[in-house]
């Protein structure tokens, strides 16, 4: 691969108490591409991407070993600033989780806590990022309405705007469409394609077609281990591993 690497994991393992969720995963994730993490439920997909912005630390008894390099720096290094990490590595959750504030305040929240308070500047940021997430046209006339009044798909795009507003380099998506209908899903998927021009996107999905549609690269995890990793097309057309093939063809999962 001649593409620059954005995120690299080296022998990454995460355990919760006695349970090992992921084991020795070493993976190089290319910059400005969409990488999908696929695998059956409980294979460690979510744990894997949550280790990339250290969200696993919020879970009790979580223990991480190995390294995660973001632009070459180990984010588990001793004096790595976790708050800054989460600015650079944004996250979209499985269930849309807008704050019960106005649409405007949702997007402005990130910039505000990072020190932007000028009204004109915030307005510009909010507009820009709502446009990036293709939500602006639907909400521009009601920015002060509650985010909770939006539809599920709109809420998820709002969460994407909110994440973009703090100018991340990497965007993690943890099954972002699993709570959405097909139409809303299609919108998010085409958005993901557009975003990959400017951001490194890592998406967890258990929907094979979705991985095929949006991803440039696919990593297949099974029981916490990385089974196969490669370009989407070659993974789907001629998987090297028997397990991968079985999973992709729907024999289990």
């Amino acid at each position: 691969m001649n593409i620059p690497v954005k995120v690299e994991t080296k022998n990454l393992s995460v355990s919760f108490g006695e349970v090992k969720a992921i084991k020795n995963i070493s993976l190089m994730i290319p910059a400005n591409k969409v990488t999908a993490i696929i695998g059956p439920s409980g294979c460690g997909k979510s744990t894997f991407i949550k280790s990339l912005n250290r969200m696993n630390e919020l879970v009790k008894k979580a223990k991480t070993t190995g390294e995660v390099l973001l632009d070459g720096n180990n984010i588990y290094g001793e004096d790595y600033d976790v708050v800054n990490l989460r600015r650079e590595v944004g996250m979209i959750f499985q269930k849309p989780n807008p704050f019960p504030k106005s649409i405007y305040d949702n997007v402005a929240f990130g910039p505000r806590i990072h020190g932007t308070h000028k009204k004109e500047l915030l307005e510009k940021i909010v507009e820009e990022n709502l446009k990036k997430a293709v939500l602006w046209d639907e909400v521009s006339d009601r920015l002060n309405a509650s985010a909770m009044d939006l539809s599920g798909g709109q809420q998820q795009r709002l969460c994407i705007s909110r994440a973009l507003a703090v100018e991340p380099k990497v965007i993690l998506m943890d099954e972002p469409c699993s709570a959405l209908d097909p139409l809303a899903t299609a919108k998010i998927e085409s958005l993901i394609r557009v975003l990959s021009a400017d951001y490194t996107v890592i998406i967890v999905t258990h929907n094979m077609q979705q991985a095929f549609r949006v991803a440039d690269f696919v990593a297949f995890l099974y029981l916490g281990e990385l089974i196969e990793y490669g370009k989407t097309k070659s993974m789907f057309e001629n998987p090297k591993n028997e397990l991968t093939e079985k999973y992709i063809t729907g024999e289990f999962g």
Partner: protein
Amino acid sequence: MNKKILKQRIYFQIFRVVTASVIIFILLMIGIFITNGASAINWTFLTDKPREGMTQGGIFPAIMGTLYLTLLTIAFAFPIGVASAIYLVEYAGESRLVQVINSAITNLAGVPSIIHGLFGFGLFVTYLQFGTSILSGALTLFLLVLPIVISAAREALLTVPKSFREGSLALGATKWQTVRENVLPYGLPGILTGAILALARAAGETAPILLTATFFFSAGAPAVPTSLLDGTMALSTHIYYMATQHPNPALVRSLTYGTALVLLLLVLSLNLVAIVIRTRHRRRRNW
């Protein structure tokens, strides 16, 4: 009819009557105090000092005393209780220390109030030399209601969905920014409800302030306390004194019931405020 179903009906009817008796008791209580005390209540009663050896006049100093004591109590208990709850829910995790703190809170809540009173007497009145004063009384009541405030605030914080915290942290907010912006505002109605219930509890407590803050009556004392180190009258202790310490309790019976009615209405209306806050919040909540 099927025997099993008949049996079930009979039992549930019994349970229903038993449950409904709760309403009867509260109505009975209010009724008795109204019939015996309402005649005593008038403008003078609410705004005048006791006169003629407590057989005439009003309870204004006692109302003010209760107000001072409870407001000062909550002024101590609210910030400290909320801060403790935030620490326990958001920061502390599950260490050994936290377990000890939790059982300390539970135990503090279970201490009989007369013990609080004696403790407050020993510590605040005597050792720290605050004397029989509003300050001593409020500090004693503070210890009494602190567990209530902490528990209510903790429950309120726990009902705020985890996803708010995750969403906030994932944007690079610090833990404190997350708590301040995306947790506390949504827990606040619950916290306030708990604080008001604590206020009502403090207003009604008798034993702790009997030992630390109040006197029967002092003709020379001002109607409104001028210093936190002044002793004071209070509604709850006034009832106790009038019913048991007055040379002629029968003569002042209606004044005693009148005082009780005022206290009862004060406490019930505080509870009502708490209920209103809670239902409004439930109705408006959109998460």
